[in-house]
């Protein structure tokens, strides 16, 4: 199921990108395909994904897998990839991407019923989903992580070689927690405690000022590090 998804995402993104890169387009078209045979279509997709992966390594582009993980949530794009294939006359058995159920349940959605009314056990419980609907390998595209993903700014130049190393792939797939918010909070906390000490009349000597300032910075950095380690331990 996953490889199928990857194939489709690869087709989707590369069909748009390849239009700009004529080399990519000609690269794909060299793979033979018969339009009325679903198995041939599937193998063609697999083969083209493999070839694209090698091609992307050479061109320092993100690999299909990587793009697949990033963009699988955008079903419209996958759909547009389908339409491209439909235009090429590929049968729908091969065309239909295996995707999440049509009715997506938002785990963070609020139930429609009044919160203070007596819960009618089943319907109220079913109004929001108790289970995270996203599978494990797609978790990094979850809504929670969408913004960190944008912030991460994985450019072509440095994700290119990295993503072909499995251990670094693991690193790339980690969610990115808001480091800045932790640091700002702990900085304010440390400096606030320092200020409280001043209010009590402590630490006005210049040497003490330097010491407390450094201690505050160390506290902010250390607490941020501890919080991030805890976050990765809890959140994976």
């Amino acid at each position, binding site marked *: 199921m996953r490889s199928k998804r990857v194939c489709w995402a690869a087709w989707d993104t590369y069909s748009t990108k390849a239009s700009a890169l004529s080399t990519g387009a000609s690269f794909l078209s060299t793979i033979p395909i018969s339009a009325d045979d679903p198995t041939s279509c599937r193998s063609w997709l697999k083969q083209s994904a493999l070839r694209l992966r090698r091609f992307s390594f050479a061109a320092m582009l993100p690999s299909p897998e990587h793009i697949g993980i990033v963009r699988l949530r955008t079903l419209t794009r996958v759909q547009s990839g389908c339409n491209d294939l439909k235009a090429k006359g590929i049968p729908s058995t091969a065309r239909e991407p295996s995707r999440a159920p049509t009715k997506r349940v938002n*785990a*963070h*959605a609020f*139930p429609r019923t009044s*919160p*203070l009314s007596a*819960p009618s056990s089943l319907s109220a419980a079913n109004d*929001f*989903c*108790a*289970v*995270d609907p996203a599978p494990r390998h797609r978790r990094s595209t979850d809504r*929670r992580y969408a913004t960190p993903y944008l912030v991460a700014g994985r450019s072509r130049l440095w994700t290119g070689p990295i993503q072909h190393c499995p251990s670094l792939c693991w690193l790339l797939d980690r969610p990115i*927690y808001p480091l800045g918010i*932790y640091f700002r*909070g702990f900085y304010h*906390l440390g400096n*606030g*405690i320092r*200020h*409280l000490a001043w*209010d009590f009349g402590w630490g006005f000597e210049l040497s003490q000022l330097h010491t407390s300032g450094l201690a505050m910075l160390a506290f902010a950095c250390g607490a941020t590090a501890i*919080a991030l380690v*805890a*976050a990765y331990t*809890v*959140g*994976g």
Partner: protein
Amino acid sequence: MAQLRSSLGRVRGLGSAKEGVGHWWAQRVTAIALVPLAIWFVIAIVSLIGADYATFQLWLAQFGNALLMILTVIVLFYHAHLGMQVVIEDYVHGEGTRVATLLAVKFVLASLAASCVLAVVLVALRS
């Protein structure tokens, strides 16, 4: 009119409002209260990373968690208001702009605090 007032009267103006230290004290008290609350908040949030809504609802439905969350929210926004007030009074010149900014900050922070408390209550009471 101004000439008729004595120098002492002009210096005294309308007199002291007798609340000069109140702001300072409130800021310190909220700061001290926020030290444990903020640490608790960070620990709670980090331990809830990746939790779904149902888990969070169960967590927040516990009395202590809801209580600490409401306290955190109220104290945090009060402290934020006091701090913003100092900054605005010190650095925004011009009577009209200053009063308008102070009012806007007051309204925004009060609305945020009220909505946070309301959200905590609603989520905690949803069963």
